């Protein structure tokens, strides 16, 4: 213990996480590291054993044996002092024998086992622990004994037992005396006479002995217990007690707490509770009589002619009597008892058997008898039988007697006759048996109070089945044509034609969807067998077989489904197949995900796929009709052959199946043709709305499009909004012919002949928005004319000026040269422009407009990312002051950095001292410009992070203005200006600061 404290303080890391740390930070290592024990090979020890490696081998042997210390350290407390000094090392900790109540230690268990084996046990097999008393003398028992307890007694207050006769005689008057003292005293049983000598024992001697009954004579005590009325002794004065005739004798209480109900020993191979002779007592008796013991028993009890015993009749076997016999105390005269508690004591189980062994001498034989449920004890056989039968079955009989009167009476009379040795009347026995019969309906015992009737009350009535009409033929017969077609179809699919049809053909026969997808993927149909092994004859045989089979399928289709089928066929004809997807060979999966329609789903109906699929159909139908017998062509006439035929068929089947030409050639030709046709097809283009998330736009360096701003990103509703993109199935040209088509302007980032990309994009958006509004039934605002009309009015620039208060100081000059965009983008155009300001302001306005095109924003953002020059505020300075920033780059950056510091929360204080700080800053910038330049990039990156939210607003504003500045009259969302002013307002405070500092 002190070692632990000396080494290092215990670390407590929480009660819920394990309390104190163990080892080295909860490892087995130490601060110096963990040193595993050395590996010592056992080779030397095994081989040498003797001379050459004596010490080493000994060390090895020692090392190899693992000891507890190997897994302990000093902090375990056991190793350093306790284990070694106490000498406990290497020993197992176990309870001392005194405290080992149940003999659980290994030694005790072994001893117990040996004893059990040598003695033999009442119960074969491994005895339950509860039944075997403690083998040693545990401390608990010694303590109890010191307190006056004797073995076999119960623990508790002593009770007084009164003679039954005396109690009966003095029932009325005694209540006043004794029960007056203890009025709640229960009466536990019928009062009977007590004849045990133990009763006469004076209490003084009992008290002196410390126990009521001598140890060992448990049978007597049991009888006492059964035959007396137990009363808890009260603390009445001695005078009161002395008035009792029997004397004030108290007894130890029953050992009822430890009573264990012991089931009959199981020695047969039947299931638990199963009695094979339950319903055949005669057979059981015969078996019993046939056995040797049974013969002897019959001889011994020759006076009694009964074939079977009443207990057997009642219980359905001999086991009960035997159990009772085994349970009954030996050497005790048997009387007629009342109900006995049907419980065993522990001591009964143990001592009774041993006593029986002693008495009979051949213990095992008797045990065997008992276990087999065969009651043949020589001396008390008769008495035991009579006694046991009544006793054991008392509860059942009484129960039944209470409920069912006559049966109970019969049984009791039978019992009485039995006990008197009179032969049992057969009728009575049968009646008694019937009471235990089971209901014939469900083989369950009848409800309580009911008896199974000997004569069934009512017979079930059976009705004869109705006569089928005389014309009824019990087997369905096809017409000859149907039959033949059916057989042909079956043959076609599964029989002779197997191997000559490929999967696609078979699928077509069975009405599966054609393998459009496979054809699209360039898969050749599975005509390998045709190509390789089959001859032309086989192909020719397969060809006509296909037609009747297909027709046969149609025969079975009721006309009622024709309409439905045609509807479904038209719906699914153009779609792709649902066959198993081909697996991509190089890890790239070409399979279609489940439940997906393929590309053919939306192919235009005039598309070549549909054409090619439908073209051979009429042909096939005609040929099929020819190939069919006449009787079936009649069927065709009645129905709708075009509908019934699978509409889309793989190319290989549609022609190859009907003509004599080999399908192989056709398939290949078709596939090649299909490939050519597909290659000749030009892709069609559709455009729909897709809303990129603002963050994605930001990361892609793209202004957030207006469509994305409508979505509430990050919310559930926004997610739904995002997904619900209106899809325009028309091509762009349909709704924007005048704009894009006439001008030959690309929709996105066009070639740029004088037209900035943003303009085109914006135009496209407007068009689409208008189309969407029109498509939505004019729910939104009426669609704007395609081009050159401004819907939203841009706020006058004075407003921005007033908000942002551009400084007229010439100190800060815009860094970037005028952007290299087309000149048109830099001229401000639009009906809502304010009157021209003075020249300097005009330049500012131009710059502000030049800011708006998105490329400018993008370039600024890029520049920001690359660290050359950056940030929204620079853009603002770009736009407002119109000064080049190149000259005062470092100073600007410096201010920039300072501004970012200001934003960190101490703005007011800084405002107060802004003048002085800016002065200081200027001097600094003069002195160490070069050094600053290095650090500036880092700072700007930091500032960049801080200003991310600002950047978004600025880009939004610049986006909106860019469309204006571009000169194309593009509608601008009304909230653009608001967003812009918001963003500007955010940066306004800092700009004021900057302005102040500049003026200083």
């Amino acid at each position, binding site marked *: 213990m002190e070692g632990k404290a000396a080494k290092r303080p215990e670390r407590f890391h929480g009660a819920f996480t394990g309390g104190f740390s163990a080892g080295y930070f909860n490892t087995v290592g130490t601060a110096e590291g963990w040193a595993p024990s050395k590996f010592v090979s056992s080779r030397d020890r095994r081989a040498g054993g003797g001379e050459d490696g004596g010490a080493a081998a000994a060390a090895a042997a020692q090392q190899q044996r693992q000891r507890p210390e190997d897994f302990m350290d000093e902090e375990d407390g056991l190793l350093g002092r306790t284990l070694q000094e106490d000498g406990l090392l290497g020993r197992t900790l176990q309870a001392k024998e005194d405290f080992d109540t149940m003999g659980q230690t290994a030694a005790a268990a072994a001893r117990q086992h040996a004893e059990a084996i040598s003695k033999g046990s009442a119960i074969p097999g491994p005895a339950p622990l509860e039944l075997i008393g403690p083998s040693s003398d545990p401390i608990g028992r010694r303590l109890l004994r010191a307190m006056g307890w004797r073995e076999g007694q119960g623990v508790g207050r002593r009770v007084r037992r009164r003679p039954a006769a005396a109690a009966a005689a003095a029932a009325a008057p005694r209540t006043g005396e004794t029960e007056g003292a203890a009025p709640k005293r229960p009466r536990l049983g019928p009062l009977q006479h007590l004849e045990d000598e133990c009763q006469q024992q004076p209490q003084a001697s009992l008290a002196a002995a410390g126990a009521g009954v001598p140890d060992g004579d448990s049978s007597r005590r049991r009888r006492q217990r059964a035959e007396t009325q137990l009363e808890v002794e009260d603390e009445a004065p001695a005078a009161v007690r002395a008035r009792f005739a029997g004397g004030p004798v108290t007894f130890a209480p029953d050992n009822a707490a430890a009573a264990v109900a012991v089931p009959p020993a199981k020695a047969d191979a039947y299931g638990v509770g199963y009695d094979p002779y339950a319903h055949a007592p005669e057979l059981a008796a015969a078996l019993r009589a046939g056995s040797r013991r049974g013969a002897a028993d019959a001889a011994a009890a020759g006076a009694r002619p009964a074939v079977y015993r009443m207990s057997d009749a009642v219980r359905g076997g001999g086991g009960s009597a035997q159990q009772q016999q085994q349970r009954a105390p030996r050497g005790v005269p048997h009387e007629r008892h009342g109900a006995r508690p049907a419980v065993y004591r522990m001591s009964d189980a143990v001592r009774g058997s041993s006593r029986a062994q002693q008495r009979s001498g051949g213990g095992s034989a008797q045990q065997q008898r008992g276990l087999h449920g065969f009651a043949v004890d020589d001396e008390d056989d008769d008495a035991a039988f009579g006694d046991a039968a009544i006793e054991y079955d008392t509860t059942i009989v009484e129960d039944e007697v209470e409920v069912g009167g006559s049966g109970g009476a019969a049984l009791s009379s039978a019992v009485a006759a039995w006990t008197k040795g009179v032969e049992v009347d057969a009728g009575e026995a049968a009646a008694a048996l019937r009471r235990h019969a089971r209901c014939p309906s469900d083989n369950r015992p009848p409800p309580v109070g009911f008896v199974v009737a000997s004569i069934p009350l009512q017979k079930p009535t059976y009705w004869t089945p109705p006569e089928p009409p005389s014309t009824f033929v019990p087997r369905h017969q096809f017409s000859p044509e149907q039959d033949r077609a059916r057989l042909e179809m079956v043959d076609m699919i599964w029989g002779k034609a197997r191997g000559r049809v490929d999967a696609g053909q078979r699928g077509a026969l069975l009405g599966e969807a054609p393998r459009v997808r496979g054809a699209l993927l360039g898969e050749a149909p599975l005509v390998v067998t045709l190509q390789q092994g089959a001859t032309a004859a086989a192909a020719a045989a397969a060809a006509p077989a296909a037609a009747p089979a297909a027709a046969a399928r149609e025969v079975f289709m009721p006309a009622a489904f024709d309409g439905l089928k045609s509807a479904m066929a038209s719906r699914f004809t153009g779609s792709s197949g649902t066959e198993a997807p081909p697996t991509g060979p190089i*890890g790239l999966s070409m399979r279609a995900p489940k439940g997906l329609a393929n590309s053919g789903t939306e192919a235009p109906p005039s598309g070549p796929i549909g054409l090619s699929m439908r073209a051979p159909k009429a042909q096939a139908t005609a040929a099929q009709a020819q190939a069919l017998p006449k009787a079936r062509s009649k069927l065709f006439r009645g129905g709708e052959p075009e509908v019934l035929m699978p509409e889309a068929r793989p190319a290989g089947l549609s022609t190859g199946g009907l003509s004599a030409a080999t399908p192989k050639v056709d398939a290949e030709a078709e596939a090649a043709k299909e490939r050519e046709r597909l290659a000749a097809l030009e892709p069609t283009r559709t455009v729909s709305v897709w809303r990129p998330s603002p963050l994605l736009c930001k990361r892609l360096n*793209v202004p957030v499009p*207006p469509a994305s701003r409508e979505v509430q990103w990050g919310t559930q509703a926004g997610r739904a909004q995002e997904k619900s993109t209106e899809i325009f199935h028309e091509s762009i040209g349909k709704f924007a012919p005048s704009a894009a088509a006439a001008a030959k302007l690309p929709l996105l980032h066009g070639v740029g002949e004088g037209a900035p*990309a943003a303009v085109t994009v914006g135009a496209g958006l407007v068009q689409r928005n208008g189309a969407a509004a029109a498509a939505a039934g004019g729910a939104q605002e009426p669609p704007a004319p395609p081009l050159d009309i401004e819907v939203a009015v841009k706020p006058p620039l004075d407003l921005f000026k007033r908000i942002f208060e551009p400084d007229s100081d010439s100190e800060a000059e815009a860094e970037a040269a005028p952007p290299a965009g087309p000149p048109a983008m830099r001229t401000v155009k639009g009906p809502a422009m304010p009157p021209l300001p003075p020249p300097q302001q005009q330049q500012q306005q131009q710059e502000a407009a030049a800011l708006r095109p998105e490329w400018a924003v993008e370039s600024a953002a890029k520049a920001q990312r690359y660290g050359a020059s950056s940030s929204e505020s620079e853009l603002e300075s770009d736009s407002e002051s119109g000064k080049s920033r190149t000259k005062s780059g470092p100073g600007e950056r410096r201010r920039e950095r300072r501004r970012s510091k200001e934003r960190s929360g101490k703005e007011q204080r800084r405002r107060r001292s802004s003048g002085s700080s800016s002065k200081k800053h200027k001097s600094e910038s003069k002195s160490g410009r070069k050094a600053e330049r290095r650090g500036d990039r880092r700072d700007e990156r930091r500032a960049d992070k801080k200003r991310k939210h600002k950047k978004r607003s600025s880009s939004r504003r610049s986006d909106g203005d860019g469309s204006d500045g571009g000169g194309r009259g593009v509608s601008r969302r009304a909230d653009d200006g608001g967003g812009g002013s918001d963003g500007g307002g955010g940066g306004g405070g800092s700009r004021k600061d900057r302005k102040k500092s500049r003026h200083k």
Partner: protein
Amino acid sequence: MPPLPSKPTRVAKAGEGPLYIARLTADGKYLLTGGQDRTVRLWNPHKPDPAAAPPPPTTAASATSDEPLEAALMIKAYGGGHGHEICDLAVAADNSKVASCGGDRAAVVWDVATGALRKLPAHDAAVNACAATADFAVLLTGSYDRTVRAWDLRAHGRAPVQVLEGARDSITSLLVLPCGAIVAGSVDGRVRTYDARAAALIEDDCREPVTCVAASHDGKCVLASCLGSATLRLLERGGGGSGGGGGSAQLAAYRGHAHARYPLRTAFSADDSHVLSCSEDGDVVAWDLVTGAVAARLRRHARPTSAIAAHPGGPAALGYRMLPQLQPGSEAHVHITAVAVFSCHSISKPRQRAEAASAWPWQQRRRRQRLRQW
């Protein structure tokens, strides 16, 4: 126009299994490969491996070649990030980061210098394609689960920024253009362009599974490799469709290679003068962009070539490499392959693209800014 390369110079032999993807860095100096061996390998294709035997006696790639090839120098192998094959790679413009994706439904972003990785639990199914912006701010992954997901690589969240839906079949190929457009090819036969700037989704229905999309260097055209009819379709990104109802954006089609089963990749040559594609017969086919005629057919591999990348360093420097090779007889088992690097010898100065009129102003400006910065 310099002639197309005609013979391979070096071979890069990766580990077990075929290679599915090979990408050159933006400057063309390094090569990254990924394949069945779940390892991303970084090569210097321009240097021979000094440790290797000077001319390897026989290589797998030399089956159809006369002289053996010298081995390229492998710089580093990045393993442990993937539990399944690697299907696609994306490289940052500054070569600092590499993203890989593969069959284990995840995408991994590697730090090239340290090998540290960040794994994104990207999809519900195998991730077939990935692409990233040049600054590696956004990573896009396309998967068999029919979605394209955008990941913000500047944040550390585990949720995608956006899930681009709409595809009805597996996504096979992805592109991110500098203008903010995302191009995805899908097995459902569509080339989908998600234009973030215009908030538009443009679908070009090719009616055949699209296995690869590649963009021209000016970003105006997209080349879609269509399975089945074995056609490369050159689609105009911006135009098309707008010309009239039912119009098509197809500018040209290139045929002549074998493409029926495997997801072959395609590319533009460095100066956009040629269109290159792998072929299942082991060739690499080059077409003239304008005329559509087959300009060259580079035969090197006995088995299908899978990936191709054009060297950006100069018009003549055309590097391509590929070839997952199929074991003859057992199609399912694609086994070890070599990467042959065809390279012209002139890795000249950084490409000066003819960008006078068509270059975007912000590109110029950015470049200027960068130069000024340095």
